[in-house]
């Protein structure tokens, strides 16, 4: 059939996996920008909390503080991972396309509209409510609807990718033979599908409380963030970034021409996924009970086991093979290594902050751990873009520009995390509103200095994100054709070419 569709028609009707992947990733980068700006404003306000600099009330600070976290997970990190998986997984398992291409397209559009509604909800003084209940109820309801829509989109896209791995593999490729990235997506996607419906239930519960009548009131409309917060903190955030383990394994394996043992690596990824299941950590129901705190500490300790396994898997086979390092792979290898380093720091900070006597569970240390872990996920996506970029956009990739963006982002995350980790020991709370400053911290010059350093970290994060967006746009507009398989990698995605779809 002759293809007579216009550009607009092609944009809105596509079901082709690589194109959908581009949509996901570009939209996610814009979401990351929104999240980074919100985080920067909160950091700026924290420099001098004795008086209002940016925001007039603690509620305003709370809106942006929660916006930063919600957007980072639902509008940035998860869609980045899904975007990568949408393009790469079908090729890696030898499938000509996603098993449910139209569901994938539907999922993207639902997610996109949901993301826009979330942003509008936050900007319209809604968000996830405020401690003093000064937010607009309608806008809070709108934000909750946006959260539901983004989750529907993420679950739909995950289902399509997972089904492709399970049922769309080429003959002869068993599950244990699929590349590490596809395996990590399989584990992560399964766990997302196991936990996101719980978040849906939490959101619906709050929504019903807000909009329903007295007979069905569960009393959660005033504590929206408490209902939802488990999805934006540890251990659940390990699940959001789980595919980074597959990304790192593939890049490091190819860089050193030394394949990591699949059973060992796959077991470690599976264990990390299991330990990251965080839907039980419902602060609304359980916080403060001994059983909850003990279980929480055990999980935090347990997650160190797969983390150690991963270090052994990634580093030990390489020490003797340093001479075999392919210098051409410097950018993806450096970014991948830094992302796993950030993740391990996140795990360590997570383990430290649940130690009871230190009393860090509600301090800024939590913020350090979240930014380290989710930052690791973003950095891994930058490494993946450096690695698979030619497949994703069909153009030649400037590795130097990606390296500069990645390093800026990495240093931003590192500086922010160190400052927030330390300031947590002074007593500064995770959420520090204007009016809480005096009560929450000792107000010493140390605190102020650390908050300034934290702000510098936020600024670098934002600059790294802006640089990544600029680099992506430049690559998309570039006319230099792709060179094929620049790394000499042996996984299937470099050898297969997706079938052209008939419009």
């Amino acid at each position, binding site marked *: *059939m002759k293809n*007579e*569709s*216009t*550009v*607009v*028609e*092609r944009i*809105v*009707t*596509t*079901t*082709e996996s690589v194109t959908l992947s581009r949509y996901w990733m570009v939209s996610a980068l814009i979401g990351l920008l929104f999240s980074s700006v919100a985080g920067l404003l909160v950091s700026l306000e924290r420099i001098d909390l004795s008086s209002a600099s940016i925001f007039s009330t603690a509620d305003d600070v709370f809106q942006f503080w929660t916006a930063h976290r919600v957007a980072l997970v639902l509008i940035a990190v998860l869609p980045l991972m899904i975007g990568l998986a949408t393009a790469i997984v079908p090729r890696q398992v030898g499938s000509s*396309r996603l098993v449910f*291409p*139209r*569901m994938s*397209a*539907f999922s*993207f*559009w*639902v997610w*996109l*509209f*949901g993301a826009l*509604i979330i942003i509008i909800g936050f900007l319209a003084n809604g968000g996830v409510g405020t401690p003093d209940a000064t937010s607009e109820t*309608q806008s809070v*309801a*709108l934000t909750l*609807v946006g959260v*539901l*829509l983004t989750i*529907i989109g993420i679950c739909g896209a995950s289902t399509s990718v997972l089904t492709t791995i399970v049922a769309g593999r080429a003959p002869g490729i068993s599950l244990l033979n699929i590349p590490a990235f596809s395996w990590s997506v399989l584990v992560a996607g399964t766990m997302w599908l196991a936990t996101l419906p719980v978040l849906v239930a939490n959101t*619906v519960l709050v*929504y*019903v409380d807000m*909009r*329903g*009548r007295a*007979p*069905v009131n569960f009393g959660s409309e005033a504590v929206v963030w408490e209902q939802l917060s488990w999805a934006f903190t540890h251990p659940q955030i390990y699940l959001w970034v789980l595919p980074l383990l597959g990304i790192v394994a593939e890049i490091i394996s190819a860089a050193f021409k030394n394949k990591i043992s699949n059973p060992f690596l796959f077991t470690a990824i599976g264990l990390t996924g299991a330990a990251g299941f965080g839907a039980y950590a419902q602060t609304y129901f359980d916080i403060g009970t001994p059983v909850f705190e003990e279980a929480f500490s055990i999980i935090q300790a347990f997650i160190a086991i797969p983390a150690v396994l991963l270090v052994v898997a990634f580093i030990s086979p390489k020490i003797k093979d340093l001479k075999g390092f392919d210098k051409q792979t410097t950018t993806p290898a450096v970014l991948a290594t830094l992302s796993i380093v950030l993740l391990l720091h996140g795990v360590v900070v997570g383990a430290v902050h649940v130690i009871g006597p230190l009393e860090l569970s509600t301090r800024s240390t939590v913020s350090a751990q979240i930014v380290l872990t989710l930052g690791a996920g973003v950095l891994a996506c930058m490494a993946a873009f450096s690695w698979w970029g030619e497949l994703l956009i069909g153009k030649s990739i400037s590795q130097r520009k990606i390296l500069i963006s990645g390093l800026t982002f990495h240093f931003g995350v590192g500086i922010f995390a160190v400052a927030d980790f330390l300031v947590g020991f002074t007593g500064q709370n995770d959420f520090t509103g204007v009016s809480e400053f005096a009560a929450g911290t000792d107000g010493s010059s140390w605190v102020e200095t650390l908050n300034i350093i934290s702000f510098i970290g936020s600024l670098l994060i934002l600059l790294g994100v802006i640089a990544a967006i600029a680099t992506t746009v430049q690559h998309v507009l570039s006319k230099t054709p792709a060179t094929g398989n620049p790394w000499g990698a042996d996984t299937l995605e470099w050898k297969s070419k997706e079938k052209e*779809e*008939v*419009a």
Partner: protein
Amino acid sequence: MLTTGFKLWFGLLVAAFTAAVFVGYTTGGTETGPLTLGWKGAVGNHIAYGILMMAATTSGLLAILSQSFRDADAEAAAEILEVDIDEVPEAQIFTGSSPWPLFTALGVVTMAVGLVAHPFVFGTGLIILLVTAIEWTMTNWSERATGDPEKNHELKEGLLRPIEIPVLGLVGMGVLVVAVSRILLAASVLGAVWIATVVGTIIFLTAYFISKRPSIPRGVVQGILAVGVLAVIVSGIFAAINGERDFHHVGGEHGEHGDSDMEEDH
């Protein structure tokens, strides 16, 4: 063995039932009303609850049908046609570009926003969703009807176009008539005359311009039409928000005189 079609329709049944209960609880239903179809208490918004329950019931019936006919697979088709399985036409799985994912997403999002904003918005989303459900289903059916994509396309066109064109034409005309009437009623008498004259002239000149250039790209024509229709609809919405101009009834209040229908506007 449960067939894929059964699972799909059963899933829709569960989703529609859950949505109905959810709507019931959020629109004034009692504890047990939405769960007992109104037998033990109120179900909340009757219209939304009724529509969703109807959707659940229909999905259930279709699930039973799908299971009964084994999703019309080759063996079942052979049995019904009373032919050998080799004589059943081959079906090719074909998945090309499609606008229905976007429209379905729009329907879902409109419904979701309607939950917060206004029942009318919710209803609009529901209509969009129902229409896209029919279109998407028919598209999928036609793509698997035979092994020839051209033939499949013709089958779909032949089945859907006689329904789509009159329905879309009626809906389009209805929307435009309502929008233009709001604009004319919002403007002054003289203004309404001028608007009607200018808009009519623009439509005439645009049509003349297009007719004189048969080689003009389809995208440009679509763009011109889209801008024009959007302008009329947006103007209509703004006019409706502003309200109609003042009408002064001749002879005082309605009902006081025999000529109460006579009115004078300014």
